[in-house]
């Protein structure tokens, strides 16, 4: 089956198989991505991140429903952690999204992190492109439950929505570096709980501290996802921000940065693979390691020499 062609013709099975090919790094994956690439760049990519149990999946479910009400098609990539011990994973985000399964305008795919540490999986960006090429208007990437430093979502999404909940810490947590810095929009979920007002004030104060540096002050919304409260307003804010990104050329700026990072990462990966493959096959790599280990040579000189040789 010509996966790319059938995907572009609307086959859901082809869409699913394309993501598998990329995720498992099948030989045909590069060819599929080459064919799909010209058809990408049209979707609005929203990242949803926040601590475990903040309600990201339930919120995603409700946001998708609101976008469907507005007539948009939606792709969802839901990421859960892979066990560092067995390599296995329980991907449970669909439990909150069961009502969306039979909606033909929605496609949900669960992915394990498979060793990636930034809150996404290595192949999330490609999975986004595949859904984009399949014509989804909006693509939502739901990260694993994150702590303070898993901020890869910023590089993958146009808009980052940070979900916070009352009761997780004091205001010092709010001024630490990390996920609070990456928000374009905040939502206080489970806002019917005690502490929502306090959290709201703390977030506002944190934003006040670097008010001068903010061209866009992240709005703080409130939601109670399981009761569908505040969802329409939140989606409206997501759309307002998209409008702002387009008007100010920030969207182009962000996407240019993304392309830059992607090309560099791809180069690194391919050069690394080329070097290990060629050098390992003729034993040169082992020799190098031995020399360094015995202190007959240092790694800095050897790597510089190797690079010179490669670039000739």
């Amino acid at each position: 089956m010509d996966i790319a062609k059938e995907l572009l013709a609307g086959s859901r099975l082809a869409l699913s198989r394309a993501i598998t090919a990329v995720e498992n790094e099948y030989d045909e994956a590069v060819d599929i991505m080459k064919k799909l690439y010209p058809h990408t760049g049209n979707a609005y990519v929203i990242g949803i991140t926040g601590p475990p149990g903040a309600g990201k999946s339930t919120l995603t479910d409700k946001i998708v429903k609101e976008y469907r009400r507005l007539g948009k098609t939606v792709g969802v990539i839901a990421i859960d952690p892979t066990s560092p011990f067995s390599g296995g994973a329980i991907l449970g985000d669909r439990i909150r999204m069961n009502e969306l399964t039979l909606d033909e305008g929605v496609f949900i795919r669960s992915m394990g992190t498979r060793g990636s540490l930034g809150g996404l999986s290595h192949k999330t960006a490609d999975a986004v492109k595949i859904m984009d090429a399949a014509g989804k208007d909006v693509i939502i990437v739901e990260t694993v439950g994150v702590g303070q430093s898993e901020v890869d979502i910023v590089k993958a999404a146009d808009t980052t929505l940070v979900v916070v909940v009352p009761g997780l810490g004091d205001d010092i947590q709010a001024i630490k570096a990390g996920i609070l810095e990456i928000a374009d929009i905040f939502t206080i979920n489970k806002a019917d709980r005690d502490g929502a007002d306090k959290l709201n004030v703390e977030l506002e104060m944190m934003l006040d501290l670097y008010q001068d540096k903010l061209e866009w002050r992240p709005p703080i919304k409130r939601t109670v996802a399981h009761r569908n409260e505040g969802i329409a307003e939140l989606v409206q804010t997501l759309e307002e921000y998209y409008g702002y990104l387009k008007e100010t050329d920030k969207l182009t700026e962000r996407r240019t940065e993304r392309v830059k990072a992607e090309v560099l990462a791809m180069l690194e990966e391919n050069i690394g693979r080329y070097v290990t493959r060629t050098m390992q096959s003729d034993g040169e790599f082992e020799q190098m390691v031995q020399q360094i280990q015995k202190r007959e040579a240092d790694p800095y000189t050897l790597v510089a020499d190797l690079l010179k040789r490669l670039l000739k």
Partner: protein
Amino acid sequence: MEKRIRVLVAKPGLDGHDRGAKVVARALRDAGFEVIYTGLRQTPEQIAEAALQEDVNVVAMSILSGAHPQLFPVVVNLIREKGMKDVLIIGGGVIPDGDIPALKEAGIAEVFTPGTPTGDIVKFINENV
């Protein structure tokens, strides 16, 4: 990145007992599989569509209500109709021995009844995917 076996663990029908499904899900996780768990009370249509979207290698269904003769074959047919010819479909739960031949006839590759060591399920999947 090597290929990982992906398994959809699903609960068709109306019984609300998923302790067994969760134990199996956990065992499959520990065996290195990616397990997609979709929760209780799934219709055959939901299970088949989730299997397609997740591009799983295995669909494992658990049922305790006695509705397996009705529901299991429907899921098999829906999955095959979607063009997923090579998906391994297995079942488990409270299933009388007498019902098993008919389920296998309908396309259920194997049936695991109460008391089965989880290692047997892992082994069966590894040998048949």
